[in-house]
Every structure is written in structure tokens, then in C-alpha cells.
């Protein structure tokens, strides 16, 4: 069975005076949620904009819902709902005005769903945009995007600046919109908790490059922290998958990547007692990955 792809980018590059996106491969099937994670300025928004056809890549190919981008972007955009932080609503107009406006452009507009979302989001459609809080603005743009029933929702930083209650409302409705195998979400965030909760796939971006892109379960399964004790102050075995070592006296905490069940034995063979094996949160993996990428970048500078 061939599952159709939601997004398929291969080898995309884009050069700016002070930043470049290098050789980015990104792909996930329809019916899935892809979370882009990375520090500020890593290139998350640029990737989203290229996927949306708002920016043309210098090289590489981009396919969204089967449409080549940006050449076929008009057809593709009918099926994509895009939300970015810098998206402006008309300040002196009401929410209802915006609903009518979007409805007049997109024939896929679902009025019942829009009314439902308004109620669930506790929004008053007669209210003018200039009186809305940040949370209400985010919910309004999400409602406007979702009521079009897009097959792909592309959301740049959905939860930035939201209080926990609104954050939950936004994430809940994003998940509710994934009702069947034909809807997909691509979103970026530096809130690793959000990404960990709703993503099927996770892509780590750092300095314009993709560090890792995998399904979330494999991602989280691959990392462990081992707590070791060495009574004789032995040296740690040289293993290529050790990403971080914290040692104080006889105690040692080692973070490893590509963990396998056979690994603890390698430490016991080297004279260590393995006291505990812990899983890592996505946030810890994120920080480890950033540290690794920084070290790599330094090495390159030296060479």
C-alpha cells in the first residue's frame, strides 16, 4: 500500500546574506503530525515558508500534497491552512468580517464547524480584532484556518506566548482536526512539551541543517542517561554514542544516543556499576542535540 505524502522536500537549500538553509530533506505521510524543533534562528520558519510556496528554494524539490511547489502553489494552497505569528488581521474589523472574507475565497468553508470552533474557543464573532487578547487572536486565526478544512495545516509557533489554558485549547483543536488519514499537520515550536505530545514525527533543526528526523517513538527510545558508580575511579569505555558525561568523583551520569539493551554490559565490563537507566524528555534530547551540534561546528572551525 502506498500512503500519499503530505510533504516531501529533498535537498532544499536557500541562501541569505546572514543565514543559509542547507540540503534539507523533510518528508511525512498524510494523516501524520510533523513537529519542527530547533532554537530561534535555526531555520524553522524558512522551511515552513518554502513548504507554503511563499519563498522559492535556490535548489532542491518541494512537493506538498502531491503538488510541486512553488510552480503549483495555487492548487496546493486551496488545501493548506497556514498560520504564522506575523499574520495580520484587520484591526478595525470584526471576527465575523474575517469569516465572511475567508468564506468568499475558499469554497471548502464549513460554516457549522466555524460556529462550533467559535463556541469552543469562547470567541464572540461581533468583537473587533483590536480588542482581542493575544490568545484570542491565535484562536481566531486557527478557527479561520481550520474552518476551511485544509488537508494540511502549517502552523508556525502555535503556542508561543499562550497561557496554559489557551495552549491546551489550541493543541486540542489541532488534534481534533486530525479526524482521518487525509489530514496532516506541520508545525514548528520551541516548546518541546507540545511537540512531544502531539507529533508523530520530529525533525531537529540547527543552524539551517537537519540534525535528526525520525518518528517520535524511535526518537525518544534512542536516548538514555545511565547513572554509574566506579569504586576504583576507572576510565569510561570509549563509545561513539556517548553524547554527554558528567562526572564527580566516583559518580558518573552518561547520556547516550542510539541506545541498545546490550549497552549497560559494556559499562559493567569496564568496572562500573549501573545504578539506574533513565529515559530522557524531548527537552533534554533537544539540549543534548544542540550541544552536539555546537561541538561539531567548533570542530569544523578548527579544521
Amino acid at each position, binding site marked *: 500500500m502506498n500512503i500519499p505524502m503530505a510533504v516531501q522536500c529533498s535537498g532544499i537549500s536557500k541562501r541569505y546574506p546572514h543565514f543559509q538553509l542547507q540540503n534539507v530533506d523533510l518528508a511525512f505521510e498524510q*494523516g*501524520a*503530525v510533523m513537529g519542527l524543533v530547533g532554537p530561534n534562528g535555526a531555520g524553522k520558519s524558512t522551511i515552513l515558508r518554502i513548504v507554503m510556496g511563499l519563498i522559492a528554494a535556490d535548489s532542491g524539490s518541494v512537493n506538498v500534497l502531491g503538488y510541486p511547489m512553488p510552480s503549483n502553489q495555487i492548487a496546493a494552497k486551496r488545501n493548506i491552512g497556514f498560520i504564522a505569528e506575523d499574520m495580520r488581521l484587520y484591526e478595525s474589523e470584526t471576527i465575523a468580517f474575517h469569516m465572511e472574507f475567508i468564506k468568499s475565497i475558499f469554497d471548502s468553508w464549513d460554516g457549522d464547524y466555524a460556529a462550533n470552533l467559535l463556541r469552543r474557543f469562547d470567541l464572540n464573532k461581533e468583537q473587533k480584532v483590536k480588542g482581542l487578547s493575544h490568545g484570542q487572536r491565535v484562536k481566531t486565526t486557527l478557527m479561520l484556518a481550520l474552518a476551511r478544512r485544509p488537508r494540511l495545516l502549517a502552523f508556525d509557533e502555535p503556542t508561543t506566548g499562550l497561557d496554559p489554558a489557551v495552549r491546551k485549547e489550541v*493543541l*486540542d483543536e489541532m*488534534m*481534533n482536526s*486530525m*479526524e*482521518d*488519514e487525509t489530514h496532516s499537520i506541520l508545525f514548528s515550536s520551541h516548546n518541546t512539551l507540545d511537540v512531544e*505530545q*502531539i*507529533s*508523530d*514525527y520530529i525533525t531537529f533543526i540547527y543552524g539551517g541543517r537537519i540534525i535528526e528526523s525520525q*518518528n*517520535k*517513538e524511535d526518537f*525518544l527510545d534512542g536516548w538514555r542517561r545511565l547513572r554509574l558508580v566506579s569504586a576504583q575511579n576507572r576510565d569510561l569505555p570509549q563509545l561513539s554514542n556517548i553524547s554527554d558525561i558528567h562526572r564527580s568523583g566516583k559518580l558518573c551520569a552518561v547520556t547516550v544516543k542510539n541506545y541498545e539493551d546490550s549497552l549497560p554490559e559494556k559499562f559493567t565490563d569496564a568496572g562500573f556499576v549501573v545504578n539506574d537507566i533513565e*529515559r530522557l524528555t524531548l527537552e533534554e534530547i533537544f539540549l543534548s542535540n544542540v550541544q552536539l551540534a555546537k561541538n561539531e561546528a567548533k570542530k569544523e572551525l578548527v579544521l
Partner: protein
Amino acid sequence: MNLNFVFSKTDKRPMYQQIMEQITQRISVGDWPPNTPLPSIRQLAAEIKVSVITVKRAYLELEREGVIVSQQGKASWVNDSLDVAKLQREELMQHLEQAGKLAKSLAIPVDELMQMLKKHSE
């Protein structure tokens, strides 16, 4: 459908294991007797706001343990030849393991722990 799965944010176990626990608990207390159909992976994911891939993993592990049966890529249901008593025993073992760990971290000697257990078993 409201399944009322409640998850603890302070639970350090991976989410798929917490989902497995919620399902096995419903089975072991008899709320979901053998042959009960389970919600589809996508339904459950939307209900508990957790990614599809995590729910899929929970179902796969439950299938491997023989707790549920799945028809390839489609419906799942509670295994009709499931030994509920065995499942309950496994749950008890998990509780005991937890108790043992806690006692260790509180520096309670094994003898004292046994005494406590004895008191509660009478």
C-alpha cells in the same frame, strides 16, 4: 465517546506505557470484558490528545503481550482467551515492585516492609 483516560504529568514512564496501563486496568477490573472492541487508534489519539504513533505503539505492545487482538491495521478488541487473573497478578507485581523501590529509597529495611505488608494482608 468519552473514555476518561486520566494521565499524570508527574508520571515519568513513557506515554505509551501509561496508555497500556489505563487499558489493562479497564480490562482487569472487568469494565472491558473479553471481546470488547477497543476504540480505533485514531479515535483514541484524538480523544486523549496524544499522537497517533504513540497510541499505535501502546496497541502493538498490548498485542504482543496477548492482552488485545488486532486485525491488521483495523479493529482491535480484548483477547477472548485472556487470563484476567494473570493480568491482575501482574498488576499486583507492579505494585509490589513500586513498594519495594519506595521502601529502599526511604531506607526501610526488608523486615519492616514485610511486617507492613503482613499487617495489610490480614
